[in-house]
């Protein structure tokens, strides 16, 4: 949701408090998702599954959605933002994505849990949420076809996955400001690129990490690393870092989710 046109502040995407701004931006979010769906349909997509993946993961305005899609709604999904990656789809879109924790000029950048995760690397590749999620899709042989968000985020994804079409809806000015398209313009661009992405799906590749898969996570605090290091198979590699190695990416992905869930329990 952070990568939707116009978004530049936490209160716009804060579903839990929530702020009056959130009601406005969840509508824009729904509209961009709907534009991606419309583009996919125009490009020839038959079955469409939407996975609401922001915050409590029940942001989409369901009555505003097309009636011929299925929607994954709600929280604590084992595969989180890429739940049902193994459902046999031919391609995936990431709409409204944001940069990785630590990215410069990426509005509201973070990686899953800002207070817990400082940096994630897999096989020495620095990972954003898009990287981590695309790799689970790749694990199940689903290619990423489209990413929308700010310039830093889109460029980051395309650097790792050059076959992915991108919609740059805004330029970030630091972490809390953006120079953005209007929502209407971003919807038009998203629809256009989504259609092209589906038409070009045949040229897309799978993004995968080669085993052995080495997950390195730097936590924000040493206390979090101490606790996370107690997850079976994890090793403490530094005062604020842990490592986990496994041949199977799905296991690594679940372990990463356990990492931030457990890390978040540390009293600050």
């Amino acid at each position, binding site marked *: 949701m952070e990568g939707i046109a116009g978004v530049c502040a936490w209160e716009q995407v804060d579903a*839990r408090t929530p702020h009056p701004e959130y009601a406005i931006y969840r509508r824009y979010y729904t509209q961009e998702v709907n534009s991606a769906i419309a583009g996919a349909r125009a490009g020839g997509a038959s079955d469409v599954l939407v996975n609401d993946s922001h915050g*409590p993961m029940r942001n989409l305005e369901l009555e505003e959605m097309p009636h011929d899609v299925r929607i994954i709604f709600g*929280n*604590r999904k*084992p595969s989180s933002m890429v739940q049902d990656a193994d459902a046999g789809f031919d391609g995936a879109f990431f709409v409204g994505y944001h940069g990785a924790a630590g990215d410069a000029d990426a509005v509201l950048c973070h990686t899953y849990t800002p207070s817990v995760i400082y940096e994630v690397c897999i096989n020495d590749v620095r990972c954003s949420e898009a990287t981590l999620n695309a790799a689970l899709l790749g694990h199940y042989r689903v290619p990423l076809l489209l990413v929308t968000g700010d310039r830093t985020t889109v460029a980051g994804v395309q650097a790792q996955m050059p076959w992915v079409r991108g919609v740059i809806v805004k330029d970030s000015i630091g972490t809390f400001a953006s120079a953005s398209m209007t929502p209407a313009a971003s919807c038009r661009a998203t629809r256009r690129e989504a259609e092209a992405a589906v038409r070009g799906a045949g040229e897309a590749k799978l993004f995968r990490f080669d085993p052995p898969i080495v997950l390195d996570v730097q936590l924000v605090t040493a*206390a979090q690393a*101490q*606790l996370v*290091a*107690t*997850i*079976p*198979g*994890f090793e403490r590699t530094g005062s604020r870092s842990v490592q*986990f190695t*496994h041949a199977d990416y799905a*296991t690594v992905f*679940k*372990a990463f*989710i*356990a990492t931030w*869930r*457990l890390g*978040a*329990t*540390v009293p600050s």
Partner: protein
Amino acid sequence: MEGTAGVCSWKQCDPSDTQEYPHYRRLMTREVRAAIAGAREGGARHVLVNDSHWSMHNLLFDELPDDDELRVISGAPKPWSMMEGLDSECAAAFFTGYHAKAGDAATLAHTYSEAIYRVTVNETACSEALLNAALAGSHGVPVVLITGDRAIVEETARALPWAVGVAVKDAIGFSAVNSMTPHSAREAIHAGAREAMARIPRARPFTFAPPFELTIETAGVEQADFIELMPGFVRVGSRAVRFNADEYRPLHAAFIAATRIAAAAAPIA
């Protein structure tokens, strides 16, 4: 702390409570002091105390002996939780103020947290005392004293027949007790600790037989959802997970990690 004489409610054990907890942490400290005194009289040279309740900084230092050979572990979380600091250098371990396992008809019965419904290792239902005794056993260290309510003391003494048990109270359901006075409990713990030191030569480390199989039944589905995320855990029921290991210590560490991530599964908005 729940197994301290007189304790019968969470408020007495809850560090955020300002009415009752300040009094009962003093009683807890005094029971620990009685166990230290008995250990010293029984020949212990170095004593290491690990505060193991809730936030794990309950003991009042001004009530502990002024003793250059006493060290105190305080605070949480600790990698080995209630057994932090124990290694093969220790001659024996005491468990004071222990409570019964989740599901027992006993005072404040639980196993680590209320998120846990039942824990078994190799099909033996486990209290905290038994799990911790097995961790001590993995270092070759026997548990020689258990104090608390009658339910946990008698169950533990059956599993560790060489240990001295001091039952300071009988449970009347979950939140009432028929208790010794704190003074009498301290005398009994003091004498029991002295006797426990004499039993060390006959005591044995408690161990389960390898390979080890841990089954955790959780209070709700949501806790099992979280535990299952961790490598090595297998979901064996809607509210049950399993972990297998050839050595006990990794299994115990996995159990501690499971209790912690389960605690994070409290209902959210």
